[in-house]
């Protein structure tokens, strides 16, 4: 904290600023117009992820407008002295996948990026915020950001999953959003805590924190522990040797006091949690895979605005109330995004893919989160499992999570997606998105409709 004032925002120092091609060009222009420099280029790292094609990288980019944006980032990084992992780098990938992978994301640091899913980095006990382009410019110029003190919101998860392969971190988070709503965390920072969170791997914790924004929160955190330190150890940009030991000693002091009081709190048991699937057009519109598409009256519990939203969502999704989720037939399957494109996500999906074939009615693609994930998966033979089953195995990037590159749904196409947003048109104008875990999406690709993967694993 650089500057603190009672009753107003404080000036927060930013330890890591991650930059990508879509939300940064206007910020760099602003610096140029005002003759400003980047205050700490050595704390700033950039990559190209949102609109890069996931096809063969040696080919030129067909989309001229995307190409201009990608070139602008390269030019800006060169001019302002920022390290860039470009499209041809072995470290390229989704900004929220490569940050942790390269050891840029560390416990106790502040991390910002012009992307709402920056909350992902909270899995390390970092305070990680998504910001708009004007804030990107502000952080580039000052390495600081004005911020009101957010409210604290404890999200405690207890219990043990009966079938941890079939019921995943994604299901836990979709269940949380389903219960507290897409605005449940507005003005708050979540701390995810409890036995069920400690039990998760770092990659799974990232999946949970990633979707904090889908519940409206500014950020989401998990207290760092031995798993966190083990993950960070040896990563390229992480502290080394004595520096690492000193850092761990400090990081151990970061956990929330056991008697801490939170502004808000909720608690869920996950002992009997089922795989979750979204049916509507926001990430709170979710049911158990064993459930049915809800009736708008029942869903909205007397709130007329929510009822209208549900009616509209069903119309957009072309679904009838009462339809069993397992009867929903799919045209496309997307495994990827900053939520679910890490090595464990792909390995888990392979548990159901191995030895099976993608339904002839489905086009399925796997987009690893980064070049490092892609390489590790290939070394483990996961690419072969996917390809043998009929999945497309692509280059890394955001891809069909938001469809800024050529990977999009055609109007009316229905997709099981491991991404984070099922908004209207998110994956392509007129496209219909159902959010699910990697293993659920993989099983849906094989059957051509949703299935309860607990029956398979």
């Amino acid at each position, binding site marked *: 904290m650089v500057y603190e004032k009672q009753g107003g925002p404080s000036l927060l120092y930013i330890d890591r600023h991650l930059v990508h091609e879509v939300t940064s060009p206007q910020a760099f222009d602003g610096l140029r117009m005002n003759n400003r420099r980047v205050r700490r280029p050595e704390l700033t790292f950039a990559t190209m992820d949102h609109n890069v094609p996931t096809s063969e990288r040696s080919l030129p980019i067909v989309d001229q407008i995307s190409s201009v944006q990608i070139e602008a980032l390269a030019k800006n990084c060169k001019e302002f002295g920022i390290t860039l992992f470009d499209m041809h780098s072995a470290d390229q990938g989704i900004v929220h996948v490569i940050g942790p992978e390269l050891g840029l994301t560390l416990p106790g640091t502040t991390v910002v990026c012009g992307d709402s899913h920056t909350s992902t980095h909270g899995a390390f006990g970092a305070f990680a915020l998504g*910001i708009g382009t004007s804030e990107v410019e502000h952080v580039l110029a000052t390495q600081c950001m004005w911020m009101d003190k957010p409210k604290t919101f404890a999200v405690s998860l207890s219990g043990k999953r009966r079938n941890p392969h079939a019921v995943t971190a994604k299901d836990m988070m979709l269940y949380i959003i389903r219960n507290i709503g897409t605005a449940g965390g507005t003005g708050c920072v979540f701390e995810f805590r409890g036995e069920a969170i400690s039990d998760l791997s770092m990659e799974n914790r990232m999946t949970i924190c990633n979707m904090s924004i889908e519940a409206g929160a500014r950020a989401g955190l998990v207290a760092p522990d031995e798993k966190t330190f083990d993950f960070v150890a040896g990563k390229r940009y992480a502290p080394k040797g004595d520096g690492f030991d000193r850092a761990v000693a400090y990081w151990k002091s970061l956990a929330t006091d056991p008697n801490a009081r939170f502004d808000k709190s909720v608690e869920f048991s996950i002992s009997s949690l089922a795989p979750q699937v979204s049916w509507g057009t926001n990430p709170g519109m979710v049911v158990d895979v064993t459930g049915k598409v809800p009736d708008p009256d029942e869903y909205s519990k007397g709130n007329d605005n929510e009822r209208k939203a549900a009616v509209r969502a069903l119309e957009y999704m072309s679904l009838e109330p009462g339809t069993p989720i397992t009867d929903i037939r799919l045209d496309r399957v997307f495994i990827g995004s900053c939520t679910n494109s890490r090595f464990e996500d792909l390995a888990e999906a392979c548990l159901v893919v191995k030895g099976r074939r993608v339904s002839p009615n489905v086009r399925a693609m796997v987009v690893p989160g980064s070049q490092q994930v892609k390489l590790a998966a290939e070394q483990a033979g996961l690419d072969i499992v996917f390809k043998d089953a009929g999945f497309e195995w692509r280059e890394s990037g955001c891809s069909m999570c938001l469809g800024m590159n050529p990977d999009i749904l055609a109007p009316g196409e229905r997709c099981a997606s491991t991404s984070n947003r099922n908004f209207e048109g998110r994956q392509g104008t007129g496209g219909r998105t159902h959010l699910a875990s990697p293993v659920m999406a993989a099983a849906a690709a094989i059957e051509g409709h949703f299935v309860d993967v607990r029956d398979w694993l």
Partner: protein
Amino acid sequence: MERFTVVKSKAVPLDRVNVDTDQIVPKQFLKLIERTGFGKYLFYDWRFDSNGRPRADFVLNNEKYAHRQIMLARDNFGSGSSREHAAWAIRDYGFRAVIAPSFADIFYNNCFKNGILPVRLHKDEVDYLFSNEDMEIEIDLPKQIATAGGRKLGFEIDDFRKKLLLEGLDSIGLTLELDNQIAEYEKCNNTFVPSAG
């Protein structure tokens, strides 16, 4: 930055909850590298059909609401993506203020950077404005009051943001005045400078 003091206009009623920024500006328009000209893409997929023809049932295509400078919205307006393009599009289209019972945090913040005043009113007050959509609304930022049909509706806003909007200040310039304090912080604190060594 553009100043905001008082705006007087009727409102465009956008009667939907949880309007996300993917709807405000769909992704296909995020590839531009300028800040200007986004107004034509505002609510693009709701405004136009797949052949680019205006959809008659969408409010922005109704002549009656043309040139209104206030948008009236429902809960959780601006949720989802952090894209500031959403604020750019709203301002470029001609809006100066958005009234809603609640806003998503990042969008709320982005408004202030672009001369747009987001006004949080109580749900019942917003219902009142929706049911009187042809009423003139005067939003007075210095007094923090929206006046409509003789009713005075007070709203909260923090002093810092209010000052930035009233005076049209550049927040980067303001922060750089604290340069000494920033430098002092940098000297005394470990920012874990990354080293690939």
